[in-house]
């Protein structure tokens, strides 16, 4: 059987092979020399151990009858288990970046005694299945020269894992600000400029940013900088092990800095706009929908600390939870990891979703391209009034986009202009939103959806709607 394959254009950098998708399946075409190496690696103890633990993407040779012809004839084909929703560092809170870094170091360290090494160390080698990082770029493994005491990916690991964390702690910002502008992380010189003098002269700033900056010109002048260096194999292994331990210590230190709470990360803890009874009513409405319709894949827009995402995940749904607040998403990722909940929390502002970036704008597809028709339930609880007022997006537009994302259901909370939180956002521009009545909202919904049920929240100006997308 011949299947038409579409190239995933983000995989062109490695001459050893490239990735294809065919329907819901993911294949990798590998050139002969790299294939031999890949087979050896997959048979090695560290690969077997990491694959069994789900930390290395499951890979197998597909049935030849299913193999297609749209790749060079001498290439070999392997199939990877699909990761349901691809995400990129621009959407990860620092906790997820650190988790990807720890996985990279684990693989590098455990492969060492078996004669393997990672030739690169970038977060783009990692995807997340729920909250769990999975290393997907198997062509990153190569045989190690036992006498080599240097790790060729050291500088890249520093640039793409440690320096972004260091810079974030010096000046917290959205991951998109960094990763949409820089594919290759933070250069030491850039980090150096963003650090205060005290941070430049103390570890880890001193070793990660200051020394490399001060010595860059001197190092570049040395033609021998990248020449192979041989030493006793025992010394080389000890040196690399010690270096990995040092990197792990720095990563741990940078990822466990005290976190400041953000405006939204305490939202559920400090909420004043719902009474306990009102919140219980909202929760029971959502729980009833989840238990009745059993959604398989859910998108929680404006998930905050993920209370309702957790409810859905416990009911068996695979959840993608997005919010623009980095700290709130970080907290949700920590909770999902600890409790092993199938929630993929991402830092995405729904009104400014992650654009397509990279070469030809195709290396990392946009969030909407990845999310479109990807969910059978979309949750929009207490977010529509922010989109209407703060972002000035018309209601019809919001509902039209929701209809593109869900294949079946939309659970949405309508907040009337008289609601105290709505009034806080409006700041006196009430006339602009005077038309937003419940009947106006329902008429707008009716264009793309059928109203299955509605429940006003007692003693409030909020109503929950369950809508079904019209086919």
């Amino acid at each position, binding site marked *: 059987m011949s299947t038409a394959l579409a190239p995933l254009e983000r995989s062109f950098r490695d001459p050893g092979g490239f990735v294809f998708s065919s329907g819901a399946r993911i294949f990798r075409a590998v050139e002969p020399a790299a294939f031999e190496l890949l087979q050896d690696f997959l048979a090695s103890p560290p690969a077997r151990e990491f694959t069994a633990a789900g930390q290395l993407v499951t890979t197998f040779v597909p049935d030849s009858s299913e193999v297609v012809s749209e790749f060079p004839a001498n290439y070999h084909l392997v199939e990877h288990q699909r990761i349901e929703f691809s995400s990129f560092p621009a959407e990860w809170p620092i906790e997820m970046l650190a988790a990807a870094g720890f996985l990279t170091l684990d693989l590098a360290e455990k492969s060492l005694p078996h004669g393997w090494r990672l030739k690169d160390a970038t977060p783009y080698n990692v995807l997340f299945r729920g909250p769990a990082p999975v290393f997907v770029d198997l062509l990153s493994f190569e045989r190690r020269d036992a006498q080599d*005491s*240097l*790790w060729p990916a*050291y*500088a*890249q690991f*520093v*640039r793409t894992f440690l320096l972004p964390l260091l810079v974030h702690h010096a000046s917290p910002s959205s991951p998109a600000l960094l990763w949409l502008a820089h594919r*290759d992380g933070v*250069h*030491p*010189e850039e980090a150096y400029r963003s650090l205060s*003098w*005290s941070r*430049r*002269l103390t570890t880890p700033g001193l*070793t990660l940013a*200051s*020394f*490399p*900056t*001060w*010595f*860059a*010109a*001197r*190092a*570049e*002048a*040395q033609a021998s*900088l*990248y020449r192979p*260096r041989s*030493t006793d194999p*025992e*010394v080389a292994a*000890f*040196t690399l092990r*010690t*270096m990995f331990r*040092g990197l792990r210590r720095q990563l741990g230190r940078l990822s466990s800095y005290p976190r400041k709470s953000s405006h939204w990360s305490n939202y559920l803890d400090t909420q004043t706009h719902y009474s306990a009874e009102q919140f219980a009513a909202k929760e029971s409405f959502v729980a009833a929908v989840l238990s009745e319709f059993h959604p398989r894949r859910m998108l929680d827009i404006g998930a905050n600390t993920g209370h309702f995402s957790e409810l859905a995940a416990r009911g068996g749904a695979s959840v993608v939870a997005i919010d623009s607040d980095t700290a709130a998403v970080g907290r949700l990722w920590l909770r999902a990891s600890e409790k092993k909940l199938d929630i993929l929390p991402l830092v995405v502002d729904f009104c400014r979703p992650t654009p397509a970036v990279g070469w030809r704008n195709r290396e990392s597809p946009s969030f909407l391209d990845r999310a479109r028709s990807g969910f059978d339930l979309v949750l929009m609880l207490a977010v529509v009034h922010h989109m209407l007022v703060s972002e000035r997006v018309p209601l019809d537009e919001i509902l039209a986009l929701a209809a593109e994302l869900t294949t079946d259901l939309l659970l949405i909370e309508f907040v009337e202009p008289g609601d105290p939180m709505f009034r806080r956002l409006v700041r006196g521009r009430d006339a602009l939103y005077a038309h937003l009545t419940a009947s106006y909202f329902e008429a707008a919904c009716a264009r793309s959806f059928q109203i299955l049920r509605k429940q006003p929240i007692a003693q409030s100006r909020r109503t929950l709607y369950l809508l079904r997308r019209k086919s």
Partner: protein
Amino acid sequence: MQSNCAPLMLKTRYIPSFMLGLLLLSLAGEQPLKAYADPGSGAMFVQIALAGIIGCLFRVRSVFNRFRRRKQGQETAEFFPKGGLTRSSK
């Protein structure tokens, strides 16, 4: 009086660090053109230096361990004489 001295004392704390910074800056040569700058050269330099230091520490530790083993061996030889322990006959 005290309020005038406090900022001065605060600043003097940073003098050694500042001098170290100046010294290291003086070691740096001319800055390369940004378009041709190698973002990994400084880190590579640091890695080579670290590898050198760790390698030296390993060798020192090996020599120390060998010395310690030899000394332990001598002590063992004194405690357990050649030929093993024999029950003394009366």
